């Protein structure tokens, strides 16, 4: 197995060390790390429950983020610290950034804080909704796989934050505007790629149930980017969306520096200034929008 080693106090740069580890069927990575730690040299890694309950042992294994106690070890496996976070030592990373984001959200029900000894009535629907996110242990595997978080962590707080937010938002004892918090965390920078759902060790429907439901709530209070509304209106008016019109109405005309690029597109026929005709029965689309009480003006 090839393990990433880095001790900031000693090494100038990270190195990858290859270890030979005796194998047994269905061996998990955590077991292999333990063997390396004992028979070769001390290795720094986190673990607590070894049974997929605490999420401490998140790492990047053969390029994919996962839990070391869950993922099976394989020949020639490359074991690296969880991608997307600063490395503290060997396989231990710094979660300080996301942790403080998480803590700043005040994830507790905001109702008036004198506690009433009688438990407040909570509907079973609300409980079913909360259940969807209750398995999230903020292990950060989803954040590691998320292209928006990885490329712009300052603009998109990452799927794990939205999942935790969704858990408290579903609690009927909470009055805070969680969609506003979601919006401030960069909600609309999600690209809808489903990587978070793909890698979540607990199969939480992060994108569809947390992120997109927040989008719906944001839209209800007009916290959406202009693009969403433009998109909807174009569909209502023409049935189909013309890419150029979508561009112009969302972004306006190209800037001076973009002109060469825009001309290139125009010359290939990829963009056009002329409006395209929509479908003939666009009135049917309009009727559907009306039935949904959308844009009745």
């Amino acid at each position, binding site marked *: 197995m090839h393990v990433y080693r880095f001790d900031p106090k000693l090494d100038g740069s990270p190195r990858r060390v290859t270890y030979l580890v005796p194998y047994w069927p269905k061996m998990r990575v955590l077991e292999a790390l333990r063997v390396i730690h004992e028979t070769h040299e001390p290795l720094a890694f986190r673990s607590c429950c070894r049974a997929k309950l*605490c999420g401490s042992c998140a790492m990047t294994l053969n390029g994919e983020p996962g839990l070391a106690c869950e993922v099976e070890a394989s020949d020639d496996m490359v074991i690296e610290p969880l991608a997307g976070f600063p490395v503290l030592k060997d396989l231990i990373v710094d979660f300080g950034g996301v942790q403080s984001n998480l803590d700043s959200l005040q994830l507790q029900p905001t109702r008036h804080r004198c506690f009433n000894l009688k438990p407040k009535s909570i509907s079973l629907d609300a409980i079913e909704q909360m259940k969807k996110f209750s398995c999230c242990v903020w292990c950060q595997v989803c954040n590691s796989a998320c292209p928006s978080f990885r490329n712009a962590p300052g603009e998109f707080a990452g799927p794990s934050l939205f999942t935790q937010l969704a858990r408290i938002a579903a*609690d009927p004892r909470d009055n805070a505007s969680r969609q506003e918090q979601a919006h401030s965390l960069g909600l609309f920078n999600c690209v809808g790629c489903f990587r978070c759902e793909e890698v979540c060790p607990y199969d939480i429907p992060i994108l569809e149930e947390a992120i997109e439901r927040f989008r719906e709530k944001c839209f209800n209070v007009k916290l959406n980017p202009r693009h969403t509304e433009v998109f909807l209106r174009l569909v209502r008016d023409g049935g189909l969306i013309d890419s150029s019109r979508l561009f112009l109405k969302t972004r306006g005309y190209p800037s001076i520096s973009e002109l060469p690029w825009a001309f290139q597109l125009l010359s290939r026929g990829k963009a056009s200034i002329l409006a395209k005709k929509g479908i003939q029965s666009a009135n049917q689309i309009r009727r559907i929008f009306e039935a949904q009480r959308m844009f009745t003006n």
Partner: protein
Amino acid sequence: MNVAGAGGPFLPSKRIVETDLVVIGAGGAGARAAIEASKSSSRVALVDKGLFGKSGCTAISIGGISVAILPDDSPEIHFRDTVVGGEFLNNQRLVDVMVSEGYDCIMELEDFGMVFARQQDGGTLRLGQSGGHSFPRVLFEFYPDRVGMAMMRALRGEVIRRRIDVFEEVIITDLLKSEGKVVGALGLDCKTGEFIVFNSKSTVLATGGAGQLNGWETVSAITTNSLQNTGDGHALALRAGAILMDMEFIQYMPMGFVYPKIVHGVGLGEPGFESIVLKAKLYNAQMERFMKRYEPERWERTTRDKLTRAIATEILEGRGTEHGGVYYDYRENPDYPKDRPYRYRLMTEYASVDPTKELIEGAPTWHYFMGGVRIDQFGQTSLEGLFACGEVTGGIHGANRLGGNSLLDTQVFGVRAGAAAARHASKTKLTPPKDLQVSEHMKRWLHLLSVEKGIRPFKIRRSIQSIIISKVGPFRNGAGLAEACDELSNIRLNQMPKLKVAGSSLAYNHDFIEAVETLNMLDVAEVTVSAALTRRESRGAHFRLDFPKRDDGRWLKNLLVSREDAGLKMWTEDVVLSKMQVGGEPTE
């Protein structure tokens, strides 16, 4: 390796944190103690060996919190069940406090964010029932198998809201004393490799149990406990001279995974709870419902100690399954994946068993330390300035703990210890520890880095663990325990002096953490074995093949222990039956 001189590549450095309270351990008890103390504006330093909310047993606990809630139920009945379950060794004063204050204390968790499972009407709480309880009492959030995580999420939220200082990944190595009082603790900040001196007016121990003593299988001992549970608090208290009690009583969770190795010991659900709530059954390899023989009236609906011994007997007498366990039968429960989603996935993904269609093997696994630091009803230990709460304490649960009472204990005594520690801090001047004492400790630890040709901690730990698993099991006997005593002595004299820590810095040095833990484990193991050897009767979780009967005449006493310069001092004290006599009912 030159560690002491200036100009060497490694210079010991320390940081000093002055505070009103330092809480050692940030699990259910520690977090709650910190919260309670902060209510009176005390400055609190909450210290966790790992990541807050992902370290220790509370975060991974299954089952729930027991509170008397039903109209026909009462704290009195809960009291009776607890003392009967503890075979009358409990400190009745403490039990009284726990059951009386339980409801208020636990309901406050809902304020922090927990949502206890409810019935269809949305307002009535849904309760599970654990073995030994006369009524359903067990509260959990959504799923019993994730209750601990939910609790830690709620407690964490409140700790953050109150802006309590949390020190993560700091391992406490020693308690610091001055003029006979505990004035704080010395710890190592794993992030930087720097020592931290916590100088506090009150110190609260909330370090949990010592499950990692029980044998070893690839990544963990055979226990339901997390990797952090190495008896640190027990050892810290012992070394500081505090009194511990009931150290011979260790509870097994009767059914834990037996394979694959990585999950060996992880809890499968208490048979008492599961049989009542999910109609689960236990079978031996011959498909006999063997509990009928051991408990003709209650079968599986009995306490953990009886179940453990029954299952262990079946295995020892050759009626065990292929991997050395007995069978759990959940096949009557097609809804199992919905009710226990976490454990269902563990079963299918790790053990390749679908419990709705097949039987799953399980065997007893170390679970809970009934014994620990002796406290009064305010969480005050025998040392001034030192308080304790949670599993690290002893006396509440007697010889055997009932399900759900542990999480209850962490909250009730977390509150009490936190409040008492805060009160103490408000009346106390901050006394600094002696510099010499601190540097002596630091030198001793740093020395481990420079031992040539030593023994790495995991090797010594393995020796301790194999002694414990073979000689301190559900069935003990004098000869085995005496041997264990000798073997541990041998480790103390011959192996420990050669303890070495590999690596050259203390930052995130797993060897160092394991060295601290191994020393603590040895301390705890010695006391446990001595106590087990001393108690010549069987009661609750402590069963002696050479003294198989309960002997109230001679042994209705607690065994107390403290460490002095000459060695371990052990003595007994009669149990004070303040509220309930043996065979009687609780009085007012």
